[in-house]
């Protein structure tokens, strides 16, 4: 038979183990959440390397309480005034930085990737053949809904 003191010890040990395991699970969950939150947003339609060549980087958004502007609203702004048939390919929320721009472009923005109705084409020198582009992204301020910046491009022969 267990005495009262032994029973108390057994409960105390069990409590410590339970609390430790709970704390470890909570810490793991928190770290996973932090890792997920800090993961840079990824676009399927244009690589981070391609954007980096235009001095553009996408990081995890820094907005504390989420964007004021909805994803759907941002997508509407991105295609406003574009040709009929212009489609949204995808959009992600990101902290956007464009280097070498005056004033500096740095925003928590909806990055909206679009395909204009007539496709994407370069604007070559006179007499030269236009080259097709592969992506067109528009940055819409997640707090104000304003168009901030755009970038598109493709390869040259």
């Amino acid at each position, binding site marked *: 038979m267990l005495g009262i003191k032994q029973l108390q010890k057994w409960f105390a040990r069990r409590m410590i183990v339970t609390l430790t395991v709970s704390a470890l699970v909570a810490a793991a969950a928190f770290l996973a959440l932090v890792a997920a939150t800090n993961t840079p947003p990824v676009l399927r339609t244009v690589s981070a390397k391609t954007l980096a060549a235009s001095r553009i980087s996408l990081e995890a958004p820094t907005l504390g309480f989420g964007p004021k502007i909805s994803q759907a609203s941002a997508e509407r702004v991105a295609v406003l005034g574009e040709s009929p048939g212009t489609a949204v390919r995808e959009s992600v929320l990101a902290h956007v930085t464009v280097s070498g721009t005056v004033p500096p472009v740095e925003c928590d923005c909806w990055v909206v990737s679009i395909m204009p*109705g007539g496709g994407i084409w370069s604007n070559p020198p006179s007499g030269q053949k236009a080259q097709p582009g592969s992506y067109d992204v528009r940055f819409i301020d997640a707090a104000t809904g304003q168009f901030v910046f755009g970038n598109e491009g493709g390869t040259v022969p």
Partner: protein
Amino acid sequence: MKGRVRLISMTLVVIASMAFALPAQAKCQPSGRGNDGSHYWTGSARYPNATVGGVYSNILNYSPWVQPGYSDFGYSMLRTADGAKYAQVGWQEDAGGARYTFDEWTHDGTWSRDHKSAYATNSHTYYTTLWGNTPGYFTFQTAGSTWETKPAQFTPNGAEIMGEVQTSASQMPGESGNHEDFTAMNIFIGSWQAFSGDDYNSSTSWYSTSVLSTSQHQAWDKTC
């Protein structure tokens, strides 16, 4: 009664004179031209067989009629004489009416175009492309201020100042009563000087150009 008629007449006269004082800029869909998807240009080009360090012009932000699916442009550009590489800045209008200030340059085997918000239509803006102003970089300026710097991967030996359409169906910037205007055209070849370019017109059947001086050029769509 007579006083009221006089007042109305005077008001109409004032409104009419205001209308005539404003430039008659209007979108005009060219008639009798199909949609061929080919690019056409009007403006001025220069190939001095020497390094070109910059080009600028005060360009009218014209608002043309644009065929759905396409864009129109007005710009100043540094380029290689063979046209394989280039860097430019100017205005852009898309078919749905969206307008931007744009720059575009070739690098890393690619072309890239950036957009920011546009200047007001029917106003003039200085569009300037510089090479080596910051060593190793192109500098794109609008209205006299730097907008962007981008790493330069070629040495320009040519320049052009042009209006451009992406299809024959679009209106070339400019109309007979209000030409697309390229004023204060300058080029840097060791020092800043008048552009003194060669007239360029992709189709004399469809478009007209006018060389007003060594630093001013105009162009327009003949059917408008």
